[in-house]
């Protein structure tokens, strides 16, 4: 009997269980260690290969893009051959070349961008990227959609087809953004019957894409003001505000009576940014209804303070001087201080006794470093 067998014989059921568990975890740990070391070696190798490939691709790409008009057909083919010789070797090389060209495309415009896009197609990278759209991984698909959109190699119909078959949220967002770049007016039709959430993050992305479009091509967002979805209405009000669609002011006014206080606050903010002084009475009229709502009161004070000095509106601001919300009181003081026929002296003489914090706020607002 060996020492180990002797040791095993001394263990009861629980001891044997522990021993087996220990061996199991030790073997697992060794496998993970091995995986860690192999993975490390592979990523180092990939990094080196990536550097070499990037260096190899740099010169031919520059020649093809920068000297596009000066190259003869043979010269062009020769440069393309240099690239295809390398990319023919592996998928990794093809993907690296595609990545390099896509990243270069972001910094190019005009003829150079067109030359780069043509080169991308001539190298068959569009076909390569499209073949990867059939992968099961949503990450690969989304990356390919981004690349193909950047290189102008995917149509609205293709994107539409992909959208119909996509279930992953991030992939859907990537397709939507790609569609906006291809055909923004069509892409935004998703808002028609949309009832899901529209996060602030999605708004950031949509705004980013739309801000690259010429302002005259940005769709009129007021057509969605009647949407049943609060999220869609909020999104459209904010887009109207940021794209300064002054023609939508009249369509925006009914939103002051929307069922959602968030929409009302956003509408007043948008009207303020659009300098819609003509609706000051309408904004002031809802002030009493929402006096207890801090966000709406703050927006009303800001709006009135900037766009009106009618006596009735000044009285409203005076009412806000004793509002329970500190921010609203602050805004009301700022607004009254800025009025030429009101100002600091009148505030100090007539109002400061009404609320203990008003003196502090007046001091704050008077200081040039805090304005």
């Amino acid at each position, binding site marked *: 009997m060996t020492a180990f067998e002797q*040791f095993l014989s*001394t*263990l*009861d059921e*629980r*001891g044997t269980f*522990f*021993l087996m*568990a*220990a*061996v*199991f*975890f*030790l073997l*697992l*740990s060794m496998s*993970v*260690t091995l*995986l*860690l*070391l192999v*993975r*490390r070696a592979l*990523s180092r190798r990939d990094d080196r290969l990536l550097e070499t490939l990037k260096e190899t691709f740099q010169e031919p790409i520059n020649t093809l893009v920068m000297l596009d008009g000066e190259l003869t057909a043979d010269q062009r083919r020769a440069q393309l051959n240099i690239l295809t010789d390398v990319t023919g070797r592996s998928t990794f090389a093809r993907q690296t070349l595609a990545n390099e060209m896509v990243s270069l495309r972001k910094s190019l415009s005009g003829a150079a961008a067109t030359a780069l896009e043509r080169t991308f197609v001539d190298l068959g990278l569009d076909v390569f990227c499209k073949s990867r759209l059939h992968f099961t991984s*949503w*990450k690969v698909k*989304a*990356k390919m959609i*981004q690349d193909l959109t950047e290189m102008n190699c995917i149509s609205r119909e293709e994107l539409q087809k992909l959208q119909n078959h996509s279930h992953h949220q*991030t992939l859907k967002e*990537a397709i939507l953004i790609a569609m906006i770049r291809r055909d923004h007016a069509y892409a935004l039709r998703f808002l028609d019957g949309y009832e899901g959430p529209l*996060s*602030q*993050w999605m*708004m*950031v*992305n949509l*705004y*980013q894409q739309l801000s690259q479009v010429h302002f005259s091509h940005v769709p009129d967002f007021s057509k969605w003001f009647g949407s049943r979805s609060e999220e869609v209405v909020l999104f459209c009000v*904010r887009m109207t505000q*940021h794209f300064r669609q002054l023609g939508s002011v009249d369509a925006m006014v009914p939103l002051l009576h929307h069922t959602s206080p968030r929409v009302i606050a956003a509408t007043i903010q948008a009207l303020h940014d659009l300098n819609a002084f003509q609706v000051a009475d309408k904004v002031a009229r809802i002030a009493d209804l929402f006096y207890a709502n801090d966000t709406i009161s703050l927006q009303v004070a800001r709006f009135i303070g900037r766009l009106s000095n009618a006596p009735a509106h000044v009285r409203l601001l005076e009412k806000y001087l004793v509002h329970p919300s*500190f921010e609203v009181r*602050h805004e009301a003081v700022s607004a009254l201080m800025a009025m030429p026929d009101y100002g600091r002296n009148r505030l100090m003489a007539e109002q400061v006794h009404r609320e203990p*914090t008003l003196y*502090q*706020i007046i*001091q*704050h*607002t*008077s*200081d040039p*470093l*805090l304005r």
Partner: protein
Amino acid sequence: MIHEIFNQAIFVYAITICGVFLLLLAIALIEMNSYMKKNFFVDYKYILSSPFAPSVSLVAPAYNEGMTIIDNVKSLLSLSYNNNEIIIVNDGSKDDTMAKLIEAFDLVPVPYAWEPVLETAAVRKIYKSRNRAFRKLLVVDKENGGKADALNAGLNLSQKELVACIDVDCIIESDALLKMVKPFMEDHTVIGSGGVVRIANSCVIEEGRLVEVRLPEKLLPRFQVLEYIRAFLLGRLAWSRLNGLLLISGAFGMFKREVALSAGGYNPNTVGEDMELVVRMRRTMREQKKPYRVAYIPDPLCWTEAPSTNQVLGRQRNRWTRGMAETLWTHRALLFNPKYGRMGLISYPYWLFYEWLSPIMEFLGLTYLLFRALTGGVNWDYFFTLVLVIYSFSFFVSMIALLAEQLSFYRYTKRKDTLKMIFLALIEPVWYHPRLVWWSLRGNFDLIRGKRHWGNMVRQGFRKHMEEKMQPEGAMP
């Protein structure tokens, strides 16, 4: 009979703790994979130019930071974000922190009006810079009241939607704010967000920026690198996936200001104010029946200097244990309370039984073993198999953490570093872990004795200078 019951209890505890850790490990790996894929496409620069980006106040309390305060503030001012303000709260420093700030940033007192929603020690003066380049900077000079009190003063003065509470001496990655605000933008129910904190000892820091990541030269901080990777990259990520995260590190956390204020801000009467705030915010939301989520970013966003001596590390861990125990005691009503959902049924019991109780169980197990050894009742073969299973399990967990780090952020790129970390994982269970158990026990003992202060903290400093900051009661390290 008693021996059998005790054996059985230790056995059940060991099995369940391993099972829970394995489960958390699996959840963390799934979440990591999902996060990496999802954020592969994200262009954070969009947030910089977007009018939809939320506004952020950075609140950084400073106590006796005269040696480094200027570089630290410059580093904060250089963070990539547009709609933000930086509030430095001088918590009654006894050194030249305030004088240096006034001189370097051309500060002058201003009549700043604010609403004292949270009670704090008296604010002496508030300063703004005359230089437009520093227009985002606001400096608050107040009486000493401790870290929580200073953070509450910052919360009072903040005028932004989100508040990022940070340790002023941490190195924050330049895109950290962009990454931290994203969860708030993706989901309006997010009330707080935490990021990974890493160890900066021996890293190359220039002008408040991390230039090169290096493994610490000293052994003790090196162990903490491994420990932090395990805790931040795996543990907290798993809890975030389960929406059961109870702790956002005090070194760098972001909260919705409105929710933090309505929950009552930081509790100045605990040394674990970071955990306590998160638990209270969650509890408040639950009691108000509002949907909420606490998010977590696995990206390394914040680099901090780890204690490099046993004495200082011991004090830190002692304080952490006291903080955790105080929070668990304060919120004991949560335990197995279905009214608080997952927090009451899963997160809180986990923290109580597997975070707070585990060092006590280890200690009890060892004491029992010693007793049995003295009375000749130890089955040594059984004991060695038990030790082996614990050792192999902890080595396995560390290796998974290292693999996860390599597959995700891969900050320690040198081969030597990888080998050193594997070696650390091998010796950690016998060299480092027993110390943690001891300090944790001391923490519990000190708590029972009524110790409430933070303890002294000696820092090496990123620039190799020696700096000692004597802490008064309740002051921050």
